[in-house]
């Protein structure tokens, strides 16, 4: 059970509000997207939720507990994989547990249990540079998962990949998420990606950024293979485009 509530959050940089009165909720096992233009304050909001930045106003609650300005509660994955080049994949994935104080051996063992599920078999002893971009992103996602099984913040995790790899990653991602059921808040500026993956979408627009719309995607999961070619999909896309 995990539920994340962002309550009335505003954040200013040099006296200018970047985001204002942000009110969002993330329920258990949900995948919610934050969709908006680049530079619209999405990453700032993630910094606040992850505890890296303290908001000028508002609170962040995880299962009812105030975690405003405290790092270490929700896991955060950035656009770049940020795997440490001098650690093997298994040691990269085990890193968040080591930081929490777990012994290296134990951390490796725990991480090892998920390699198959994440489609990473056989990469344990490899170094990041020996892997393709897609595989590295999988490893980064597993590391995110190992850090916290409650709530994950993913900041455009697939945007640096080429279109074909991205397509594969979407399929892979939906499959994995169906099994591990992690509550996820997902930043993207790709409308189709948002519709394809999310249960709900928040639109973050304007300057300062505000949540201007909430769209529920009523397509059951796991999603149909050709969902992105259906009329419903296009309807959602039209609706979003009109609001952006």
């Amino acid at each position: 059970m995990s539920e994340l509530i962002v309550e009335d959050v505003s954040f200013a940089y040099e006296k200018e509000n970047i985001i204002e009165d942000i009110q969002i909720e993330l329920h258990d096992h949900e995948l919610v997207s934050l969709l908006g233009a680049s530079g619209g304050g999405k990453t700032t909001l993630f910094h606040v939720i992850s505890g890296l930045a303290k908001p000028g106003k508002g609170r962040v609650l995880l299962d009812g507990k105030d975690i405003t300005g405290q790092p270490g509660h929700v896991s955060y994955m950035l656009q770049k994989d940020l795997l440490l080049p001098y650690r093997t994949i298994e040691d990269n994935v085990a890193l968040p547990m080591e930081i929490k104080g777990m012994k290296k051996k134990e951390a490796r063992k725990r991480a090892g249990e998920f390699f198959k599920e994440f489609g990473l078999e056989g990469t344990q002893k490899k170094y990041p540079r020996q892997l393709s971009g897609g595989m590295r992103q999988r490893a980064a996602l597993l590391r995110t998962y190992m850090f916290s099984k409650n709530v994950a913040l993913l900041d455009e995790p697939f945007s640096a990949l080429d279109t074909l790899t991205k397509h594969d990653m979407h399929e892979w991602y939906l499959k994995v998420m169906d099994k591990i059921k992690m509550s996820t808040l997902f930043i993207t500026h790709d409308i189709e990606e948002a519709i394809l993956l999310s249960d709900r979408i928040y639109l973050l627009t304007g300057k300062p950024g505000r949540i201007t719309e909430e769209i529920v995607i009523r397509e059951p999961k796991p999603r149909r293979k050709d969902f992105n070619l259906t009329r419903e999909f296009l309807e959602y896309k039209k609706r979003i485009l009109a609001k952006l």
Partner: protein
Amino acid sequence: MTKKLQNITSKAWSLAAVIAILIIWQIASSTGLVLEFMLPAPTAVVKAFFEDFPALMTNARVTLLEAFAGLLLGVAIGFIMAVLMDRFRHLYQAFYPLIVLTQTIPTVAIAPLLVLWFGYEMMPKIILIVIVTFFPVTVSLLEGFRSADQDTIQLLRSMGASQVQIFRYVKFPGALNRFFSSLRIAVSYAVVGAVISEWLGGFEGLGVYMTRVKQAFAFDKMFAVIFLISAISLILMWLVDRIQKWCMPWEKAEK
């Protein structure tokens, strides 16, 4: 495979150049083009090296001891300074210019002073080596720490990592490459520094031995020492290389 082959060919070329120089030198000496006592023939140098081998080794032992002690201390001090200056900005602002200043002091000028202050034993030599070796280590490590990827640091912070953990998992391993480059420089500085400080006062060591054979105009022995010192530096640099490869296995991991 082709890379390996290229490597071998490039090595073959440099080897050929060395051999060519040696042959020309030998011919110049044995035909009397250069006076034998001014520039002894390579064969004479080799002969002197083997004749003097025991004396060379006893003296090399002392020089190496000084070099190692000085290098170890220099690296330790360099490491501590880099860590402190990375952690505390004001320390950096206060001491960095001073550290740069220490490097503008000519070694040859302060070595006699150190002898005056600390005597003819090992102490002044080790101090001199520390002065010349800590600098490259400090600068390279500091640069390495400071160039750590900010996004990676943010990621670790979001995981709740402490400053010490960020240092251990990101900054330190990220600075290793630069550290080893500076260590290669520091190693050769240490050997040369030991020899120079021995020139200016001491009882034993390759530097002392060098002054002695120079005063006896035994240039063949002089060259034997010079080559020995070069060889020691080269071997030590190679050793640093091996240690680096061993410490950084990810560098050679095949794609």
